[in-house]
């Protein structure tokens, strides 16, 4: 029993790390531009599929390195040609636009790679369990946790200490003032959007290694990311991280006792959090 609980908590933590990675990208875009990027899951799928196509040529590591960058480039192209036009409009429009884009991306991956589940192979030494007693602790899972940790740490370092990161944070509070201080807001948004999509692409490659690839992978993972953001509190990146991990562990634990409720539980958790604290765990009062 303890092993089962440990297994599911650890599993939940990994899933939670995913959600967090994805939700952080969503959150970045949401905070600076007020765009709810429904297509984020689509970008995740694209990241995974690009890595799948690249690995035969440049190997797993090459795919892991290159695919998120290519995904970010695709995202940037779409942002600077189309999504940019919707900034400052009613959020309704960007929501509908990215909603349509999510459809196109999902169907596009189905068109190019087919709708069957594709296996995504990770290096063999990684997929072996590390110990017999804790069979679930494969090298790949451990690697994922480490990589996500490193990525999140890097993200927070960028946002805290680099000039562009400070500007992004300032922009989420008051973009107009940032603009009058002479910052090129257009570039700032570009960079921010690219960064968000990079995280989605990276999450996509990691998800592919664990779950395999299918076109609906994005739309399956996007809703929990929304929930993670809401639980953590809109506008707060540490909150998003916390929210992602929380719902991961919650759904992992529920799998032990009541498997069919493992999806519903995160919404129940969200309801509880909001009933007690309407702005989410770490959200600022009155910002949204």
């Amino acid at each position, binding site marked *: 029993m303890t092993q089962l609980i440990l297994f599911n908590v650890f599993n939940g933590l990994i899933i939670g790390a995913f959600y967090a990675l994805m939700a952080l990208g969503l959150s970045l875009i949401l905070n600076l531009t007020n765009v709810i990027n429904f297509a984020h899951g689509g970008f995740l799928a694209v990241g995974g599929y690009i890595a799948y196509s690249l690995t035969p040529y440049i190997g797993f590591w090459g795919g892991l390195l290159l695919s998120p960058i290519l995904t970010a480039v695709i995202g940037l192209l779409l942002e600077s040609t*189309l999504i940019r036009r919707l900034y400052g409009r009613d959020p309704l*429009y960007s929501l*509908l*636009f990215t909603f*349509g884009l999510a459809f196109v991306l999902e169907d596009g991956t189905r068109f190019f790679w087919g709708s069957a589940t594709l296996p995504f192979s990770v290096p063999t030494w990684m997929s072996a369990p590390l110990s017999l007693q804790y069979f679930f602790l494969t090298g790949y899972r451990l690697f994922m946790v480490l990589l996500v940790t490193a990525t999140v740490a890097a993200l927070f370092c960028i946002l805290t200490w680099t000039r562009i990161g400070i500007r992004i944070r300032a922009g989420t509070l008051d973009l107009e003032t940032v603009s009058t201080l002479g910052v090129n807001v257009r570039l700032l948004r570009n960079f921010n959007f690219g960064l968000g999509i990079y995280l989605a692409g990276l999450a996509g490659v990691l998800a592919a290694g664990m779950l395999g690839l299918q076109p609906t992978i994005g739309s399956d993972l996007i809703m929990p990311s929304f929930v993670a953001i809401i639980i953590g509190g809109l506008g707060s990146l540490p909150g998003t991280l916390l929210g992602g991990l929380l719902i991961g562990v919650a759904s992992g634990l529920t799998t032990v006792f009541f498997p069919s409720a493992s999806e519903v539980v995160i919404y129940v958790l969200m309801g509880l959090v909001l009933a007690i604290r309407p702005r989410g765990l770490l959200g600022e009062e009155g910002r*949204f």
Partner: protein
Amino acid sequence: MARLQMRSDKRLGDIAVWALLLTMPFWINTVGGYTQLGTQVVIVALAAMSLNFLLGYTGVLSFGHAAYFGLGAYGTGLTIKYLVPNTLVGMAVGVLVGMLAAVVLGLVIVRSRGIYFAMLTIAFGQVFYFVAYRWNNVTGGDDGLSGWQRLPVSLGLGTLDITRNGNSFYYFVLVFFVVAVGIMAALLRSPFGRTLLAIRENERRALFLGINTNRHIWVSWVISCTFASLAGTLYALLNNFADPHDLRWDQSGDFVIMAVLGGMRSFWGPLIGAAIFVVLQDYISSQTENWMSFIGVFFMVVVLFFQRGLLGMFRRKSS
């Protein structure tokens, strides 16, 4: 004078819409449709118009109306299948279930605004989808709820056979459409409706006038969701089936795009949007497997080029 002119234009428009709806079974075949498609348009339009009560006239963005639409559908289907084999009772239960869910969730949701409101409605909407999807032995899970069908309705004087997809079912649906739309129109003309418009235009000002905006938005939300679940019950009756997809966020998005496409600021806009969307989806999905891409591109094009909606553009041109 101009105002009088506008008012008579509006009345002409109303008459034209009602005339078209009343005579639909007689002309739909000549334009290449069929009565069942027309029925579907009316039902989906009711859902889109209910959504627009909130979106266009109260100014808050709900992206989770499919939940209440689907609750109506499942409430009806489950009641007829397991409890009472009676169409009207099933409908009543469906509407009540949707309304209750809206009442309770509304308490949490209406405290937020803008994108936060949108995200909460999206997220809460998914709960019911997963319940329907996972609770296999009751709801049929992914396969949907089948094994039941709508039954003849017995009125005091005689029974109305609506079991076939013909004219009698269409007019049965139309009666509910007329009542629901009539109530919404009357509400919008009442002081309550004017207050909603005031909140839409400037919430802070409404607050300063002493209006409890949260409560008004909550009431508007409940009304909107209730009529959406009414549409859901009719939709389940139309198909003799409830689909978990009816509850999913993509369905919510469909309702929003219908309202935007037709024109959120006009009462009949969502009806036109629904007609275009349903017919287009019916056509595209019969032509190609990649219908999702077409619908997706359609969304993007509408947002980039038709933000004011078809009726909105028409109105601007004529003024």
